[in-house]
Every structure is written in C-alpha cells, then in structure tokens.
C-alpha cells in the first residue's frame, strides 16, 4: 500500500475522482488487500454516521416557514446596489493603481527632464520649461544682505538649503497626490476586507 493511493481513498469513496486517477485507484484496489480494507473502513464509518441520527420529528416545512414569517425582522439593508455601481466598485482599485502609476511616471519623467535641463544637457532648447528661476526670495534677500559677510562657505550652505527647499516644494504636490491615491487604495482594501469578514461570519 503506498501513501499515494491511501491519500486518494477518501476522495474515491466520496466520488470526487475522475478519469485516469480514478482508474489508477481502482486498479490498485484490485490488487491491494490493505487498501481495500481501508476503503471498507471508510465506507463503514460513513454508514455508521448515516445511521447515527434517527429521524426526528421536526416541524414541517410549511409550519416552519409560517413560524419564521412571524419572526422575520424588518430588513435593515437597502436594495442591492445597481449593477453600474458594483462594476465601478470592483474597478476602483484598478483605476487607483493606474492613476498612481501615471502620476509616478509623469513625476519621474518630469524630474529627469528638469535635472537634464539644469545640467545643460539639452542646451538652450528647454529654456522655456525652466520659467522662473528656482531660487526662493529668502535666499536672494539673504545673499544680497549678508553675502559679503557670509563668504563662500556660508553662501554655499544657504544655496544647499535653498536647493533642498526647492526640491521639497517641487516634490510635495506629486508626493501628496501619491500618498492620497495610496490611502484611497488601502481604504478600498480595508472596506473590502471588512465586508468579506462580515460575510464570512454570517
């Protein structure tokens, strides 16, 4: 008797096997007495279970339904959502993911182009993209007022802070958008999970 055949005996007994696997089990049973004995045990157990519950006098279906009708509460749930709404609900995560990918790609490409333009990779052809200079007002004022006293290291440090400020300002909007989309997606997952859990409980 092999484990392989043993593990399929219950499925065979329950009528769950088809085709070649069923034939293989039957062929094996024809030559394997221990497996036949085990199958017989499963059948006996099934018979025992079937006989273990004597027929009880339950209410008839009509009587039961009549009694139940008196106990049925008013259903709090509203009508089933319209088909269009259901489709939109299931498409929501796909739409959110697509929006997230779109924002991410356009942001990455935009950043790469801006960086390339700053380094002069495109020469003057992208000047129109650069628009206003990236320096912030506070930086220009500080350099004008204290530039002489700060010296090169001081101005360099201010320039670094300014670049950091510019970078954060430029990134803030797309990052906020990404975070918003991510929260919407996670929110959808949470609602879906809660609904599934509720259904499972009932």
């Amino acid at each position: 008797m092999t484990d392989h055949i043993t593990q399929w005996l219950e499925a065979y007994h329950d009528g769950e096997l088809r085709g070649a696997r069923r034939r293989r089990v039957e062929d094996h049973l024809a030559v394997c007495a221990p497996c036949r004995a085990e199958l017989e045990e499963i059948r006996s157990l099934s018979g025992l279970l079937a006989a273990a519950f004597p027929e009880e006098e339950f209410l008839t279906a009509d009587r039961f339904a009549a009694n139940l009708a008196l106990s049925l509460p008013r259903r709090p749930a509203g009508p089933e959502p319209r088909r269009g709404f259901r489709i939109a609900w299931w498409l929501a995560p796909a739409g959110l993911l697509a929006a997230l990918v779109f924002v991410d790609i356009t942001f990455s490409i935009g950043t790469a182009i801006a960086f390339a333009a700053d380094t002069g990779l495109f020469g003057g052809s992208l000047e129109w993209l650069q628009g206003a200079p990236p320096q912030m007002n506070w930086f220009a004022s500080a350099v004008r007022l204290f530039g002489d006293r700060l010296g090169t290291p001081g101005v360099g440090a201010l320039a670094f802070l300014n670049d950091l400020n510019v970078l954060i300002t430029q990134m803030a909007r797309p990052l906020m958008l990404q975070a918003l989309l991510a929260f919407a997606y996670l929110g959808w997952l949470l609602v879906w999970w809660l609904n599934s859990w509720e259904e499972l409980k009932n």
Partner: protein
Amino acid sequence: MIISETVAEAALIEQAQNGDRHAYGELVRRHHAGVIRVVYRMCGDPALAEDAAQDAFIRAWLRLSSFRPGTSLRNWLYRIAVNAALDALRRDRKTADLEVETLSLPDPEQGPEAAVLQREREHAVREAIRTLPEAARSVLVLREYGGLSYKEIAAALDIPLGTVMSRLNYARSRLKERLHPNFTEREDD
C-alpha cells in the same frame, strides 16, 4: 436541480431581495429540509437544531442583499446554517461539559435489548461528532449529511479545496479512533 427550477428559484431570490416575504417563505420551504439536516448533525440535538435553523434563516433574510445571483443559494444557506449551529452550541453550555474520554461504542453482545444498544451506539457517534473541532466538524457534516462535493464545501466555507480534504481526513481519522475498536464489525450486526 433542473433548469426550470433554477430559473424559478432565481426569480424568487430576486423578489425576496426586493423585500417580498412570500417569495422568501417559498425559498425557506424549499431549503428547510437541507438546512435542518445540516444543523441537526452539527448540533446533535433536535431542539437546538430547530433554533439554529430559525436563526440561520433570519440571518439569511437580513443578509439576502449580499447574496450574489448566479451562485448556489443552497451552499450560501449551508454556510450560514453551519455558523448558526456553532453559535447555538456555544450558547448551549451543556455541550461544554462533554466527557470525551467516556466515548465508546457499546458492545451489542453485552446489552439486553438491541434497541437500547442501538440508541447507545447512535448516542456515542453523535457525541464523537460533537467533540470534533468546529472546522473539521463543519466539513464532515456538509460532506456526510449535506451531500456537498468538495468544491461546494470549499465555496460554502470559503476555504481551499486542499483544506477541505485535509479537514475531512482529520475528522474521519478522529472518529475512527474514538469509535474504535471494532466499529466495522458492529456495522454488520
């Protein structure tokens, strides 16, 4: 279920989902026997089973809007029925005090009355089923008494097919151990 019955049932479900109590009553009449069969085997007690069945149909009525048309109402009801039966058992404190060590099939040779022995044997089997873990018992009852296929059980309980097989195997192994020795011989009595 033949096609015309399936179509008729789909219409009844739609009406019931729109609040038609008469349509729901007809659905209850159609599935009453199956639900009772499952909850009775889950609970092992007729009175408890009646309560659990009523509870199951009330829950189903309240949740009917979440039922997806095109899927099996029977399987959906069985899932609710299994949970209602388990809740009924939890409420029934008597079952918590079950002495599992005392479970064994009485020997027919020792009893004076065959009928008494038969009742004792039935009782032993029912108690053995009741002592199974809930997850394994649910699968066993749906298979042995509900007549559901492995796929239907998987769908009804929302578990993978492999889990159905392993839980069923576990339940049967435990029952064979509990009802040992010689239950096969006693079957021939």
